[in-house]
C-alpha cells in the first residue's frame, strides 16, 4: 500500500509523517476501498472488488482528517483514485521471504537498545518511530490494521497463518535461532495451491512457446488453462468467504510494502533515511537489503531479487484469477499472447515463470515426462 502512496507523494513525506497520520491514512484507505456492493455487480464478499464488509473507525467531522498537506494528495481524487485496491497476500509472502522484515526488526532492535549501529541520524528518527509504532506494536484499538490481540499476540505468526491457509506454504525461514517458527496451522488450507499453480504456469508456458506456431501442431490447451485458473480461483475464494482474511491481508501487505519501499526508494541518488543511517547505499533493492542485513548480522535470502521481482506480477495475476477473468477458454490466450503495452498479462506471466523457476528450483518450462 505504501508503495502505491509513493506513486503520488514523495516517500520522504511518508517516512517523516506522524505515525498517527499513517495509521489514520490506512484507516481511510480501508474506508475508501473498492467496494462493489451493487446488485448489478453481484460480487460476493471477499471478491477482489468487494474484499470485506467490515467498517473502519467512524467517519470524521470537518476538522478531520488529521493529514498534513503533503499527504493529502493520496486521498484526493486523481489518476490513482479512491477507491483503493491493495496487493494480494502473495505479495506479502514473497517480500517476507527475502527476510526483510526480520532484518529491519534487528535494525529497530539495535537502535532501540544501544549504539552498536551508531546513533541514528536525525532523518532516520521518524522512520524508526513509525516502523516501531506501526509494525512492532499491537496497534491502536479499533484500527483496521490492528490484528494483534490477546488471542493472537504474535505479529509474525499472524502472517504465517494466512500464508498457510491461502497458499499452503511456509516462509523459507524460521526464527532467529533457525528453528521452525511456531504458529497456529489451520486444517482448512489450500495444500494443492502450489501444484495447481505450477501446472498452470507450465501450461501457459506451452502457450507462449507455440503462440506463433503455424507449421507445427500446437499443444496449447486453453481449456486446461481455464480449468486450472478456475480451480485456483475456487480454492482462494473459499478461504476468503464473506471477507475472511481481508484484514489480515491488508495488514500484511502494508507492513511488507513499508519495508519494500524503504529498500526500493532511490531518487536522484538519494536513499531512504534508514538506508543512509545504516550506510547501506547500493544499486538495486536486493543489494541494499544485503547491506542492511550485513550491518545487523542476519543474512537476507540469497534469491531476494527474484522475490522482489515476482511480487508485483504474481499479486496482480492472482487478483485477476480471483475475479474469474480466466475461467473461460476463450479468455486465456491473454495469458500467453504478447500485446503492446507495459502492463500485460503475458508480460506478467513471463516474469512469474522466470522467477518462480529460480525461487523454487523447479523448472516450469520443462515438459512433463509421462511414465511409460
Amino acid at each position, binding site marked *: 500500500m505504501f508503495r502505491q502512496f509513493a*506513486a503520488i507523494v*514523495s516517500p520522504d513525506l511518508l517516512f517523516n509523517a506522524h505515525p498517527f497520520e499513517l495509521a489514520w491514512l490506512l484507516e481511510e484507505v480501508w474506508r475508501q476501498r473498492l467496494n462493489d456492493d451493487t446488485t448489478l455487480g453481484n460480487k460476493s464478499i471477499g471478491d477482489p472488488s468487494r474484499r470485506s464488509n467490515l467498517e473502519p473507525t467512524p467517519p470524521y467531522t470537518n476538522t478531520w482528517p488529521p493529514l498534513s498537506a503533503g499527504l493529502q494528495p493520496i486521498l484526493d481524487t486523481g489518476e490513482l483514485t479512491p477507491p483503493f485496491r491493495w496487493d494480494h497476500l502473495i505479495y506479502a509472502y514473497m517480500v517476507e521471504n527475502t527476510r526483510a522484515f526480520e532484518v529491519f526488526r534487528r535494525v529497530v532492535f539495535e537502535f532501540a537498545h544501544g549504539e552498536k549501529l551508531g546513533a541514528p541520524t536525525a532523518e532516520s528518527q521518524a522512520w524508526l518511530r513509525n516502523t516501531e509504532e506501526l509494525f512492532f506494536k499491537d496497534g491502536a484499538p479499533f484500527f483496521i490494521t490492528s490484528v494483534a490481540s490477546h488471542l493472537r499476540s504474535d505479529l509474525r505468526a499472524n502472517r504465517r497463518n494466512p500464508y498457510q491457509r491461502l497458499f499452503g506454504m511456509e516462509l523459507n525461514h524460521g526464527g532467529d535461532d533457525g528453528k521452525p517458527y511456531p504458529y497456529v496451522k489451520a486444517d482448512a488450507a489450500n495444500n494443492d495451491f502450489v501444484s495447481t499453480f505450477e501446472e498452470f504456469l507450465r501450461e501457459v508456458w506451452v502457450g507462449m512457446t507455440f503462440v506463433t506456431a503455424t507449421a507445427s501442431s500446437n499443444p496449447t490447451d486453453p481449456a486446461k488453462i481455464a480449468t486450472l485458473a478456475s480451480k485456483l480461483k475456487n480454492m482462494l475464494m473459499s478461504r476468503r468467504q464473506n471477507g475472511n482474511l481481508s484484514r489480515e491481508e491488508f495488514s500484511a501487505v502494508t507492513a511488507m510494502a513499508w519495508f519494500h519501499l524503504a529498500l526500493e526508494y532511490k531518487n536522484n541518488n538519494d536513499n531512504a533515511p534508514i538506508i543512509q543511517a545504516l550506510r547501506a547505499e547500493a544499486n538495486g533493492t536486493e543489494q541494499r537489503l544485503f547491506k542492511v542485513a550485513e550491518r545487523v548480522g542476519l543474512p537476507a535470502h540469497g534469491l531476494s531479487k527474484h522475490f522482489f521481482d515476482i511480487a508485483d506480477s504474481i499479486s496482480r495475476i492472482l487478483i485477476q484469477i480471483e475475479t474469474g477473468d480466466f475461467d473461460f477458454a476463450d479468455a*486465456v490466450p491473454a495469458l500467453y499472447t504478447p500485446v503492446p503495452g507495459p502492463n500485460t498479462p503475458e508480460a506478467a506471466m513471463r516474469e512469474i515463470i522466470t522467477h518462480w523457476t529460480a525461487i523454487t528450483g523447479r523448472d516450469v518450462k520443462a515438459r512433463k515426462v509421462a511414465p511409460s
Partner: protein
Amino acid sequence: MTKQPPDQDSRPRDTAAAEKPEGGAPTAADRHHPGGGTVPTPPPTPGDLAALLLELLRKINSEVPTTPPLQGRAEDAVTNFASISKDLRTLADGSFTAVGSSNRSKRA
C-alpha cells in the same frame, strides 16, 4: 539396348567446351557452337545471387507468423489486467507527482 550416358572418367577431354571449368563463364567455343542453336544461359553472377537472396529474405520475412489478435474475453482480460495494474501502480511504475522529490535533498 538403351545407351547409357558416359561416366565422368570417359568424358571426351579434347574439346574446348570440355575444358571449360564447371559453372564458369561461357567460352568462345560455347558462343560459336558448330551445331548452332541457342546460346546457353550464363550462370548467375554474385550480384544476381545477392538479389536472389534478398528477395528470398523478403519473402521469408513477409511470412513470419504473427500472433493472432486477441478478441472478446481475451481482449477484456488484457484491459482488466491493465486496470488492476493501474490501481496498484507503485513507485517502480512511475515516479510520484508531488512537488519536490526529496525534502532531505533540498536541505542538503
